[in-house]
């Protein structure tokens, strides 16, 4: 191969590179598709390949292939004796190179289906995946498998290198056909960013330098793309999450600092700032960040993936495995987990089996409750009759844990959504898991019959022969949910009561679910922590869904201050195919406080109630409610009825 690119970057590497960013990339494939040649090219041209390594490879090539003069770069990446002897790649190999712009870590994995677990391992930390396609062969099974695994592990960026363009006369039509076929397949996957680059790894076309053989290609060469792809925004900077890893308590040995108590860990999401209110999960205790410490001094803020130590204003009982979040942006807290797992051990998944589950810094015991289906990584076909998962198989698994876990869906945050399963007896790592939202549809088919996925284990939706259409036809009307949100004393209950009365008088069954009333029964065991509020909304939404499904118009009157909770309520109805009308009762805060129908504002101001919405707990105004009503509206009920009618929900039994 031609010599390395200019060494003009030495100066920059020596003095400037300390401030460059890091990009982790994953490659998968076999020797045939030119993967090793591509990696060799990147390492060689960026001067990361050293003369003694090259000499070693040249010597090994001569032993393997005779005096052909060919340097087999696959021998460079195959690090283990067994790999070199058998001429195969067994494991993940990590390679390093740097340019003045960025530092790179390559996780190089074999591409065969029997190494799926290695691909999953390499993909788990990657910012970017390179899928290689041989221009002569087009999109093959292995290309699809790599794309699927990349999307499953949510690698934010995918680069499809159509390699060996020199062997198809650098033909644009060949490239375009492959792009079209791959894009069509990829549309079935969740991939946010795909880039296609025609290359010849052997000749260096479009790898480091722009090729003169393919003027029709207007994009940048591969290395330029790797150096410039924007990855900072891939990290979750929205949802503050801090798994407590280690409690720093120097004790008396350090003299004057004996009262120091800090919570050390790596920020897993969001931006944490000094003075922020925080909630500790699963206990729900609240406090405020007193300081963010590092060995090098205090910081004003911390964000992923920084390792820091938090000090809190209050002396709380916090230990390893707890999760620090913000009161109004809390993760899911549950013992029932729904996940996609990749099985990585020779011993197959045991239905009902007990495992150790490690998630962030917390280890709990878990029972494998139900395997919903197995996914064929090549065809994406779901086998719903699968009884187990064997080595390298992927499936959807429900688990139940011994203690509640505070987590996010993997799609939202890889750090708080991934877990591993460990064998209690052998201590081996058995599986990698990616958590799903509790409301994640099981599949299009199951959605129609279950109207929202059940969360509990071993509980199957009992299907009924009676369809919703038949029920609503027989009743002469259909059900729906009207969700009234707004500050305390904004007038929600007044609107809800009037609406209920108007509908019932028109012979349409309607039933009011009032937040306060539900707390006397169904939600009696819930408090006002962020977690409990979320559960309050969930139960209320599920109750409303059942009423709506039965043909009743459910009228919910609930402060429901957090946008995420209201979104969950809507999702529960959307998945069930039921109408949901979010009504924002937009009464100005001063007016609500002046009314203070229950005298609660006064109590909150007096400090008798903590966490009161509108006083010391915020209300997140709906950004896009279906309807806004104000206190001076002449007839808010008519507006709600019109909104229901507009959705085809009858609001009167009189014939039209």
């Amino acid at each position, binding site marked *: 191969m031609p010599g390395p690119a200019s060494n003009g970057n030495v100066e920059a590497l020596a003095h400037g590179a300390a401030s460059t960013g890091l990009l982790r990339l994953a490659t998968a494939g076999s020797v045939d598709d030119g993967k090793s040649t591509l990696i060799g090219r990147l390492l060689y041209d960026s001067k990361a390949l050293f003369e003694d390594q090259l000499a070693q490879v040249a010597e090994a090539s001569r032993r393997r292939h005779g005096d052909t003069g060919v340097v087999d770069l696959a021998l460079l990446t195959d*690090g283990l004796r067994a790999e070199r002897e058998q001429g195969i790649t067994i494991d993940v190999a990590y390679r390093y190179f740097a340019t003045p712009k960025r530092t790179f870590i390559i996780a190089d994995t074999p591409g065969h289906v029997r190494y799926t677990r290695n691909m999953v391992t390499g993909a788990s930390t990657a910012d970017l995946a390179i899928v290689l396609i041989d221009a002569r062969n087009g999109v093959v099974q292995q290309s699809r498998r790599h794309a699927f695994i990349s999307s499953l592990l949510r690698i934010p960026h995918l680069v499809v290198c159509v390699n060996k363009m020199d062997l198809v006369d650098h033909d644009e039509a060949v490239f375009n056909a492959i792009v079209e076929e791959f894009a069509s397949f990829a549309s079935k996957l969740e991939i946010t960013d795909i880039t296609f680059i025609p290359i010849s790894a052997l000749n260096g076309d479009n790898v480091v330098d722009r090729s003169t053989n393919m003027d029709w290609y207007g994009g940048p060469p591969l290395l330029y793309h790797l150096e410039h792809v924007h990855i900072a925004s891939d990290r979750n900077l929205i949802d503050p999450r801090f798994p407590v890893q280690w409690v720093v*308590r120097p004790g008396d040995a350090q003299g004057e600092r004996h009262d120091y108590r800090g919570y050390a860990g790596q920020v897993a999401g969001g931006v944490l700032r000094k003075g922020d209110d925080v909630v500790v999960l699963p206990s729900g205790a609240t406090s405020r960040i007193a300081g963010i410490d590092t060995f090098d001094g205090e910081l004003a803020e911390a964000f992923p993936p920084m390792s820091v130590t938090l000090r809190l204003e209050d002396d709380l009982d916090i230990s390893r495995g707890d999760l620090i979040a913000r009161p109004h942006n809390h993760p899911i807290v549950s013992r029932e987990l729904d996940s996609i797992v990749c099985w990585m051990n020779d011993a197959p998944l045991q239905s009902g089996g007990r495992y150790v589950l490690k998630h962030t810094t917390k280890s709990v015991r878990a029972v494998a409750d139900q395997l919903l289906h197995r996914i064929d990584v090549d065809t994406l076909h779901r086998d719903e009759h699968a009884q187990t998962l064997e080595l390298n198989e992927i499936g959807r698994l429900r688990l139940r844990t011994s203690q509640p876990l505070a987590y996010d869906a993997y799609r939202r945050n890889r750090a708080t959504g991934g877990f591993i399963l460990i064998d209690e007896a052998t201590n081996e790592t058995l599986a990698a898991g990616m958590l799903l939202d509790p409301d994640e549809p099981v599949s299009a088919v199951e959605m129609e019959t279950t109207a929202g996925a059940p969360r509990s284990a071993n509980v199957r939706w009992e299907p009924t022969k009676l369809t919703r259409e038949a029920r609503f036809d027989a009743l002469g009307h259909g059900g729906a949910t009207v969700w009234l949100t707004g500050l305390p004393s904004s007038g929600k209950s007044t609107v809800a009561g009037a609406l209920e009365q108007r509908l019932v008088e028109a012979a349409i069954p309607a039933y009011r679910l009032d937040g306060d009333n539900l707390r006397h029964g169904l939600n009696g065991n819930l408090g006002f922590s962020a977690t409990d509020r979320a559960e309050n909304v969930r139960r209320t939404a599920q109750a409303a869904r059942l009423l709506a499904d039965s043909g009743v118009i459910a009228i919910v009157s609930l402060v429901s201050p957090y946008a995420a909770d209201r979104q969950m309520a809507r999702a529960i109805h959307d998945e069930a195919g039921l109408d949901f009308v979010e009504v924002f009762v937009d009464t100005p805060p001063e007016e609500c406080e002046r009314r203070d129908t229950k005298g609660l504002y006064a109590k909150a101001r007096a400090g008798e109630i903590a966490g009161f919405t509108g006083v010391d707990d915020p209300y997140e105004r709906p950004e896009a409610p279906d309807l806004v009503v104000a206190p001076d509206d002449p007839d808010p009920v008519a507006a709600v009825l019109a909104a229901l009618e507009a959705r085809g929900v009858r609001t009167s039994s009189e014939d039209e």
Partner: protein
Amino acid sequence: MSYDISHLDELESEAIHVFREVAAELEKPVLLFSGGKDSIVLLRLAEKAFRPGRFPFPVMHVDTGHNFPEVIEFRDRRIAELGERLIVASVQDAIDRGRVVEQTGPRASRNRLQTVPLLDALAEHGFDAAFGGARRDEERARAKERIFSFRDDFGGWDPKNQRPELWNVYNGRIHRGENVRVFPISNWTELDVWQYIDREGLELPPIYFAHEREVFRRDGMLYATASFIELLPDEVPFVETVRYRTVGDMSCTGAVTSRARTLQEVVAEIAATRVTERGETRADDRATEAAMEDRKKEGYF
């Protein structure tokens, strides 16, 4: 506001996370310290992970008895400054007790003899985890090794049966008698280490900088003369200005000719070099194609 983070900060954060995971999940860890640049970086990372607390583990050096005197002096001073506890496992003791047999002749080296005293010391103190400064860019067997490298109750490494390592979720569960070797700077390159030493202003033993030394040439490499190293008939000592890229046993660590007397000059030389540090200066890896893999299977670092 930019939420970019430099590659050194990201590598540092990853290493701190690894330190804390081990301290939290293993019963009795130990930090292996050689006095070399990689383990000097480990000490700084441990400070970052645990200060203002003390290290939740002692520091241990496997002393071949053939180490550079400058390095031993530096070792004792640095650990004292940190106020941490140092344990020394001695190859000489192991030889005296008949646990290992000293090689003889001009090519004798105590490098490989370190494995037995290392395993003995781990067992004697009941250490179930040992931090090491190995990096994946050093050598191709290491390129495949996990950050948490599980060892059986004979201290051996089974490269084909390694635990998958996903995200930053490490599985540190072991049975009694087994242990894990943990490599917090697995993902660092030699250049990263030097840049970090520069950034942090870390002190190094003087042998890392150009100095005059009596050396002799063997197999194309320069070795320091010492009372315990026998010269071959055609080997003639001479004085050269050299520095070391790695610090190991004097019998197997070669020097490079260099005029780099400051850290910046060393970093510039490293950035421009075309030979790996182990290829240039470590005779122990040159024995066979899989020399490192074989030593690791036996329980080497």
